[in-house]
């Protein structure tokens, strides 16, 4: 429940908070800051599978791809990121899932 409130609060906040939303807005900011897609922010159109430094933040030690809900990457970029990571894995540039 709480999660849903936070989500919808975020949407309204982006368009300018309306009256009566203040309490919710404050609570939201306490819990989690708003995530912005790293690739949109940096204006990266092509995610290069050869660039390990770009991909590594999205494959922590265990080697799993970080889900969008954690990383805040937008859907379009997550799709591209996914193929880039899988290509890089084939070439042993970044690891497969380990342990």
């Amino acid at each position, binding site marked *: 429940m709480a*999660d849903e409130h936070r989500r919808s609060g975020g949407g309204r906040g982006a368009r300018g908070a309306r009256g009566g939303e203040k309490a919710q807005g404050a609570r939201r900011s306490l819990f989690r800051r708003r995530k912005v897609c790293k690739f949109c922010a940096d204006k990266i*159109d092509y995610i290069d599978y050869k660039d390990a430094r770009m991909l590594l933040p999205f494959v922590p030690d265990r080697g799993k791809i970080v889900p969008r809900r954690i990383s805040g990457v937008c*859907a379009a970029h997550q799709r591209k990121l996914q193929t880039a990571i899988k290509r890089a894995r*084939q*070439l*042993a540039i970044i690891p497969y899932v*380990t342990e």
Partner: protein
Amino acid sequence: MAFTRQYELVYVLSPDASEQEVTDLHAQVEATIARMGGELARTEAWGRRKLAYEIGRHKEGVYVLEVINGSGELIKELERRLRVNEQVLRHLTVRVDEELRAAERLRARRKVSGPRPERPASEGPVPAAADEQEGEQGKGAEG
């Protein structure tokens, strides 16, 4: 050769391969490209790099990137040769012309519309609804 497409070919050689073998293979690739009416646009030798995981008993590999303009037939032949060569640990061919063109289009569109004006409109009710859905999924996974 009806279509010219751009490909990126990366291959990883065993660390036991001598300098000579590396240049030999590169020459072989180059010759094949020339013979089949392709064009070698760019070569990058990344040299010796640590592998992210062991391949066989190897912990390092020699990486070479070749950017090739040519046909699918050419790539077929190159891949066949790489598979035959025992020094090649891994190889990967990716067709890049379409992806690069798509990226170029995105860049052009951003330049035309400017960074701000388009965003708030497109971020209206539709993505918000998508967010909510995802929120519920997330809740299930987290809870």
